């Protein structure tokens, strides 16, 4: 973490108010960006922030936008995202963002103002029991009761958020504590009795795993979000290449293994590739790394990889053997374990297996109807990949747009695909893209979003304008709540109950323009590439590109909910004309 030194650190023992102690603790933690929104119980904190230009505060337009932006910042940089909001509604507005980060193990520190200690429990104005509300969706939380503990609490919060299996930590800070004074102390080492995450894997287990890999004939690596960072992703590639083992990733794992590598099978699961799901079903050894056998990945559990032994590597012991029993469990961080495993592993005979997979790839590639009437969404994603050379940070929202972005971009690097995988939060994409761009000023950041999800946090156009954040918004407009419509199409006799959005959608181009952003509407296939190219030239503001796509386009392959992975619907059973 970089520390800019515009303000001198106070001497140890200097008496500071709670607000000053908080800001100083953030500076000490290396925080350079805070996403927030002021309100009654945090006015004092904002006042203290006024004197600290080394912390850049991003004023959002809704507290949910702040948590998603901090989340996008964290996922794309690896640094902990920080959120500052007021009590009551400010705090409750962060809940969806906190739950999103919790499900996907994203490090956040969320600071909420609280009514004065003496008024807590009295149903005071703008009081909410945010500790209670967020208890099941935070890794840990603190109500500050003594200003002398504030510095240490902030220090611990950052430690807990970023270590082990990362996650959001909430600090609730009552207004009276903000005003009290205490001597400043430099942050010391953190020691929490009940919290000692395991990083290094058990050596004997690693050796056992290596021997099991050596004997496998149809091994498969299944990589998840736990590998989607450096240096774990590099180690994953080294293992796969040395032992010649094919790799499939989860949605959260996209980017952890370069898809241009012939060993890549792309994504598995409900909308995974045919050959990835086939390979899982046929495999005799699955090496799961930083993944948790989520139901969207496994399909029907009883039919999941029936002939395979399982090696399960994860930093969270509770994720191991939760859904699928592991033959060899290894608790620890992928970045520690994978290099050791790579050293220990030989070269299993996988030639026949790799040839089989190659054949499956040729026979059942990802495909879409290229001559379809309007712009096919996969075509847009392919062109985005072309103009950004597979190196942009893609921030996908949720729904069909998310699956198109997952299937068709071709990710090459860790931390370049961000999406709400666990919670599936519509409205995540756009604010998260703003956070990602603020954290990665030198990278191109593209938000792939639908007409529904974009409207869930459209107010953040103002934030992007205020700070001149040049996010490229690829809005795939089908006028539908597309993924739900797809389920209605396939499983509910095309009864499109409450999924039609087109009759009241805004003019997205004019909407963008009203904020001062640039808007383009693209209705022809031939215009896709030129408009994308044009958008890359804009460096001072967001560009919204609205692609009018086929309204009833669908995402395939698809494993229907509750079906086995090899029971895929490969293409549209009844193509739309």
């Amino acid at each position: 973490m970089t520390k800019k030194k515009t303000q001198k650190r106070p001497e140890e023992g200097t008496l500071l108010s709670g607000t000053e102690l908080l800001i100083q603790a953030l500076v000490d933690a290396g925080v350079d960006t805070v996403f927030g929104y002021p309100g009654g119980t945090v006015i004092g904190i904002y006042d203290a922030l006024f004197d600290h230009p080394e912390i850049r505060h991003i004023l959002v337009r809704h507290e949910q936008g702040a948590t998603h932006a901090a989340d996008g910042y964290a996922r794309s940089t690896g640094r902990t995202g920080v959120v500052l909001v007021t009590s009551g509604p400010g705090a409750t507005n962060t809940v969806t963002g906190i739950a999103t980060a919790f499900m996907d193990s994203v490090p956040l520190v969320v600071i909420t103002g609280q009514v004065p200690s003496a008024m807590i429990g009295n149903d005071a104005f703008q009081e909410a029991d945010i500790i209670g509300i967020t208890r099941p969706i935070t890794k840990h939380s603190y109500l500050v009761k003594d200003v002398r503990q504030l510095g240490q609490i902030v220090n611990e919060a950052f430690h807990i958020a970023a270590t082990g299996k990362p996650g959001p930590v909430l600090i609730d800070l009552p207004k009276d504590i903000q005003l009290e004074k205490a001597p400043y102390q430099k942050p010391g080492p953190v020691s929490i009795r009940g919290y000692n995450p395991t990083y290094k894997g058990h050596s004997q287990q690693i050796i056992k795993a290596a021997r099991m890999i050596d004997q496998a004939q149809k091994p498969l690596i299944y990589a998840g979000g736990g590998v989607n960072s450096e240096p774990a992703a590099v180690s994953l590639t080294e293992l796969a290449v040395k032992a010649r083992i094919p790799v499939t990733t989860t949605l959260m794992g996209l980017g952890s293994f370069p898809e241009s590598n012939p060993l890549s099978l792309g994504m598995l699961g409900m909308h995974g590739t045919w050959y990835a799901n086939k390979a899982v079903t046929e495999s005799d050894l699955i090496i799961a790394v930083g993944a948790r056998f989520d139901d969207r990945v496994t399909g029907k559990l009883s039919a999941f990889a029936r002939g395979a032994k399982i090696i399960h590597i994860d930093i969270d012991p509770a994720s191991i053997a939760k859904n699928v029993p592991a033959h060899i469990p290894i608790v620890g961080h992928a970045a520690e374990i994978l290099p050791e495993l790579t050293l220990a592993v030989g070269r299993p005979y996988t030639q026949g297996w790799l040839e089989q997979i190659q054949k499956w790839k040729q026979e059942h590639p990802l495909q879409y109807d290229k001559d379809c009437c309007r712009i096919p969404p996969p075509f847009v994603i392919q062109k985005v990949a072309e103009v950004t050379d597979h190196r942009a940070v893609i921030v996908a929202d949720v729904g069909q747009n998310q699956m198109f972005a997952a299937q068709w971009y071709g990710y090459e690097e860790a931390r370049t695909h961000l999406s709400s995988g666990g919670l599936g939060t519509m409205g995540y994409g756009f604010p998260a893209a703003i956070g990602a761009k603020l954290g990665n000023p030198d990278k191109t950041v593209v938000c792939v979003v639908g007409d529904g999800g974009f409207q869930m946090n459209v107010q953040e156009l103002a934030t992007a304008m205020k700070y001149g954040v040049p996010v490229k918004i690829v809005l795939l407009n089908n006028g539908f709540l597309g993924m739900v419509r797809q389920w209605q199409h396939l499983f509910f006799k095309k009864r499109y109950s409450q999924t039609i959005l087109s009759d009241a959608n805004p003019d997205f181009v004019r909407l963008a323009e009203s904020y001062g952003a640039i808007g383009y509407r693209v209705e022809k296939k031939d215009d896709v590439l030129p408009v994308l190219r044009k958008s890359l030239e804009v460096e001072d503001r967001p560009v919204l590109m609205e692609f009018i796509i086929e309204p009833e386009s669908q995402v395939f392959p698809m494993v229907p909910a509750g079906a086995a992975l090899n029971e895929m619907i490969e293409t549209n059973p009844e193509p739309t004309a």
Partner: protein
Amino acid sequence: MRHTLSVLFENSFNAIPRIAGLFSGRGYNITSISFGQGEDPEVTRATITTDGDERIIEQIAKQLNKLVDVVKVIDLTYEPFVERELALVKVQATPSTRAEIMQITDIFRAKIIDVSGKTVTIEITGKSDKIDAAIGMLEAFGIREIARTGAVALKREFKK
């Protein structure tokens, strides 16, 4: 199968709801749960009795361990351990039934700790099944109220 878990956690206002919330949020059963200060003034010991198959119990232990406040989780089920629960049972008693109630109280090594014209209150300690048995015997007289603590347990030591 019934499991007895001993959970040590750092004293914090938030720890007890976090532990209880884990059970409700993840749909685990709690048969009984009891809290009290342990040997270390900064640490509380909870004794939790729960039901579930091996996979569920393993998950419960792992999820408890994952809580930052939790210092240690011990599943006592497969170790020799001593377990006690305390129950206060208020039973209807008339001069004609009192002697019989006292006899039952003696058999269960329980104590009468309060008496009124119409009731006696009995203190019973022991394993939960013994308390169940005592209550079963007392039901015939008419039970007014019951207060039970839930089990507390410690591992048995054999070293001399």
